[in-house]
């Protein structure tokens, strides 16, 4: 082994404490990179394979009713639509006697024989339909497992006003429902919602749709995909006579949208987070190498005098950076791989793929290694460049004494004097090492920013939940009627046992158009004095309904380029299907969905319908126990006019549980990472400072100062720089949260960027805790310092 290599290894061993701090930060950065990027590829691959294997559709058109022959005729005029499937889709309720909550689902028709149909199914248990019976059903597998349903069991569905008993032949998944929720909900609740596949001819009979369909899905040709929006619009126009409720592409389909958002989020985070960590590691290494270079100034000069070239010396000292980079890279790669496995387990809980597994990607591993070595080398070279530029004789000479000017604070003599010599030493030390102090400040502000981001994440979810479920959606149940019912029906429902109050809702789906923007959605007519569905602004204040006009969700208004006072064109899918120009009087805030609200009577007026109720919101009496709920649900189950029942309270509970489980876990990991940054930066700076000021410490010891008194000097320095950094980091964290929530904005949900005041306090407290813990380690080193030896140290 070459002599310089041996020197390097021994120097690394001597500096192991300080290098460990750097390696920790590099490891954290690489763990993020490998875990997130691997998960990105795992999810992308699983999704792409699933879509390909089971022919996930490119588009969906939801209709009232269209003869299949007519649909085929119209579709024949679209050569860029490569394949089509016409099917029948209807909501249903599931009669499960022991269930204490409503159980709903969607019935979809499938061909009687298994083939490579669009939006095909992946069988999990049992078999496809057989010829023996018509009334067979294949359930979504998650629902079946949640309800303990096995192939061969009997399932009772209430749909089309009719109770039907169906024989379960099998369970399956579909790429259409990788993430399955009830319409309008965000919650994955397999106990309460399932998909039920029945034979095509059985569906035709059941829903009285012989030779007709109400749902068309299909695949575009490659050329068609390039003009999908245009084709969909044209298709909607052609199918308009058959009552088009909605026409959307894959990127707007709920499950696909959610998966794509998640995948995109992984990709973004796999770049941002590692950059932060690796950037900080480069800064910390810069400080460390500057110190080592100063310490080994004479050695560098001697080696140059012996005849070692700058190139050889650069390579030698680069060894520190390469060692840190490789160690951190390897550890981060391994931890990242195991973390991606953990992430995969979490994803499997929420996303249903036939095959989702965590793979090892050598190229990601190598990339991670390369990036960490690059950043570490950058930090190393930056720290060394000054020394390496010196001539050998200069390097061997003592450096010029550091600047001895007074600080700006010293101009205020009485204030300066009042500080006392301890604070004077601390402040001089901070301001006379501007680069090092800046790096400490930057690291702690980034650490605090990540802490605040983590807390903000949790706060935002809390805010979203309480806003949506305590301020906007205030009912316990929401009923959807198969057909509109008169208001008297609602009065009857309000008199059911346990019901405190019932409010009518009138929803009309359609398309909003403004200048060149177009968006599908619905207007919900509500009572002006209603209390169960309340439009609110971002501050949570109720926005009063106008006598005429619409209240529009801010995201919808923004997408349509509308402001209060503007008008929007609305083409409904029911009743008189002609465009109406409606004024937008106010903008409201909603965390879920793109709601548009209008006074009930006003909506009835413009739709030329009277006393029309399509949904109802029910509020139970306070403290209604499970018995009351079960009784009520039983009563509701006997009403054939009710198509589906949503349990709002249950949605809230499940969302909260999911949130507590995975999102808070994410926040904890982020807090851990922030801690690593704090530790890494503080420890590194403090241990270097200890090394440099050995003689000063020894002098104080000789004078008679105890370790605690000497330690307090270092503690004050660490405290000032790191708490100042933490304070500066808070606006940075808030800004980071604002950027992050932008990636969680789509038509289905909008993550608010909210930080509660207590979170700022928690951030400061945690920063202080990290400072204390780092100081604990520093204090131990201080106590073990061979200070007598230090008195003989020759620089």
């Amino acid at each position: 082994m070459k002599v310089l290599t041996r020197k390097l290894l021994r120097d690394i061993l001597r500096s192991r404490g300080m290098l460990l701090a750097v390696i920790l930060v590099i490891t954290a950065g690489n763990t993020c990179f490998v875990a997130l990027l691997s998960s990105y590829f795992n999810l992308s691959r699983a999704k792409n394979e699933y879509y390909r294997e089971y022919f996930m559709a490119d588009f969906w058109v939801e209709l009232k009713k269209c003869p299949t022959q007519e649909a085929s005729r119209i579709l024949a005029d679209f050569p860029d639509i490569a394949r089509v499937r016409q099917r029948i889709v209807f909501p249903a309720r599931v009669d499960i006697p022991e269930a204490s909550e409503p159980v709903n689902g969607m019935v979809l028709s499938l061909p009687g024989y298994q083939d490579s149909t669009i939006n095909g199914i992946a069988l999990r248990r049992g078999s496809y339909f057989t010829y023996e019976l018509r009334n067979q059903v294949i359930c979504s597998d998650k629902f079946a497992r949640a309800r303990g349903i096995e192939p061969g069991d009997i399932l009772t569905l209430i749909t089309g006003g009719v109770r039907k008993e169906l024989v379960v032949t099998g369970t399956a998944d579909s790429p259409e429902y990788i993430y399955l929720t009830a319409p309008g909900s965000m919650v994955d609740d397999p106990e309460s919602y399932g998909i039920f596949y029945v034979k095509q001819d059985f569906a035709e009979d059941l829903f009285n749709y012989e030779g007709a369909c109400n749902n068309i899905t299909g695949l575009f040709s490659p050329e068609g995909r390039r003009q999908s929006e245009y084709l969909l619009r044209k298709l909607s126009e052609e199918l308009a006579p058959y009552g088009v409720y909605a026409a959307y592409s894959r990127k707007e389909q709920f499950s696909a949208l959610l998966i794509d958002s998640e995948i995109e989020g992984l990709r973004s985070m796999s770049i941002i987070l590692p950059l932060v960590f690796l950037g900080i590691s480069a800064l910390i290494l810069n400080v460390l190498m500057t110190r080592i270079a100063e310490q080994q100034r004479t050695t560098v000069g001697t080696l140059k005098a012996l005849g070692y070239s700058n190139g050889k010396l650069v390579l030698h000292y680069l060894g520190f950076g390469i060692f840190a980079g490789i160690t951190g890279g390897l550890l981060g790669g391994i931890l990242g791989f195991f973390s991606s496995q953990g992430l995969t387990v979490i994803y499997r809980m929420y996303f249903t793929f036939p095959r989702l597994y965590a793979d090892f990607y050598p190229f990601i591993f190598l990339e991670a290694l390369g990036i960490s070595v690059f950043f570490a080398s950058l930090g190393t070279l930056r720290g060394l460049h000054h020394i390496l530029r010196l001539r050998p004789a200069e390097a061997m000479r003592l450096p010029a004494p550091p600047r001895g000017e007074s600080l700006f604070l010293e101009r205020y003599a009485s204030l300066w004097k009042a500080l006392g010599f301890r604070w004077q030493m601390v402040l001089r030390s901070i301001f006379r090492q501007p680069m090092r102090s800046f790096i400490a400040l930057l690291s702690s502000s980034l650490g605090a920013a990540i802490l605040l981001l983590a807390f903000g994440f949790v706060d935002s979810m809390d805010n979203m939940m309480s806003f949506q479920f305590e301020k906007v959606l205030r009912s316990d149940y929401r009923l959807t009627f198969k057909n509109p019912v008169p208001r008297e029906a609602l009065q009857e429902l309000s008199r059911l046992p346990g019901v405190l109050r019932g409010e009518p809702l009138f929803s009309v789906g359609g398309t909003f158009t403004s200048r060149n923007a177009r968006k599908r959605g619905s207007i919900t007519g509500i009572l002006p004095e209603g209390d169960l569905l309340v439009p609110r602004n971002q501050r949570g204040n109720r926005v009063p309904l106008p006598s005429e006009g619409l209240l529009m969700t801010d995201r919808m208004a923004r997408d349509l380029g509308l402001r209060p006072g503007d008008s929007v064109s609305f083409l409904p899918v029911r009743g008189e299907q002609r465009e109406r120009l409606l004024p937008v009087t106010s903008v409201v805030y909603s965390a879920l969905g793109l709601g548009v609200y209008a006074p009930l009577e006003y909506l009835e007026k413009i739709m030329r319908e009277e006393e029309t109720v399509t949904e109802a919101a029910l509020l139970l009496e306070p403290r209604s126990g499970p018995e009351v709920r079960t009784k009520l649900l039983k009563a509701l189950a006997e009403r054939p006019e009710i198509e589906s029942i949503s349990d709002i309270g249950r949605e809230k509970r499940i969302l909260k549980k999911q949130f507590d489980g995975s999102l808070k876990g994410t926040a904890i990991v982020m807090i851990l990472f922030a801690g690593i940054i704090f530790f890494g930066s503080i420890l590194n700076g403090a241990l270097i400072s200890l090394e440099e000021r050995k003689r000063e410490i020894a002098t104080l010891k000789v004078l008679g100062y105890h370790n605690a008194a000497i330690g307090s000097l270092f503690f004050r320095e660490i405290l000032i720089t790191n708490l100042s950094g933490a304070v500066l980091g808070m606006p940075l964290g808030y800004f980071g949260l604002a950027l992050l929530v932008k990636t969680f904005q789509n038509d289905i949900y909008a993550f608010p960027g909210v930080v509660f005041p207590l979170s700022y306090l928690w951030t400061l407290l945690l920063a202080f805790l990290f400072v204390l813990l780092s100081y604990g380690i520093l204090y131990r080193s201080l106590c073990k310092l061979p200070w007598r030896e230090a008195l003989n140290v020759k620089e």
Partner: protein
Amino acid sequence: MTQKTQFSAPLVELRNVHRTFIMGEVSVPVLRGVNAAIHSGEITIILGESGSGKTTLLNIIGGIDSPDEGEVIVEGENLAAASGKVLTRYRRSRVGFVFQFYNLIPSLTALENVGASAELVEEPLDPQKALEIVGLGDYGSHFPSQLSGGQQQRVSIARALAKKPRLLLCDEPTGALDRENSVKILELLQNLNREQESTVIMITHSSAIARMGHRLLSLDDGVVRSAQTVENPLSPRELPW
């Protein structure tokens, strides 16, 4: 002492060498027009008080510093205008340095310190042999912190020897040593000069040590005041300490 006529070309020739240091806001002229010649195979002593510029002069001869003005001709090559790469090659192949405070690398053993020098040349002196020459054959595995001052200086000399240099430059090699060790070091250098015909340039502030060289250059305030040949150089044990 009389001036002896030299007919062979000097190994090193300094012509009007100037060097000024900038220390913070202060500018310090250290060499102010040095003219001197060093001959091959001799021990040349550069004598001067502290601050006379002798270390700077040695550093310039050794290629670890460069003059601001003037010429430094070594074996016909002018080092004054040489690039960093050329100087590095020069130091590697032709110069061995012995420092006042040894400048051993603390994380390397004695043998490894010598090896660090030996690895730089194609045909070095075996590091173990170099240590034996300086009488430390059994101390190869010792770290500098485990050696006395005199031993460390001998390791430093062994390190310089390992490259079989044309020039052995010694910056106050006995400055940090007691008398007994100083004598041993100087005897070693004298033997190297005699047996290996090394050209030794040694700087010192001690007029006693000055009497062991073949040639004496007196440096004062950045200029050579006198250059003399010493007729009968003394052995280190004979020096009037």
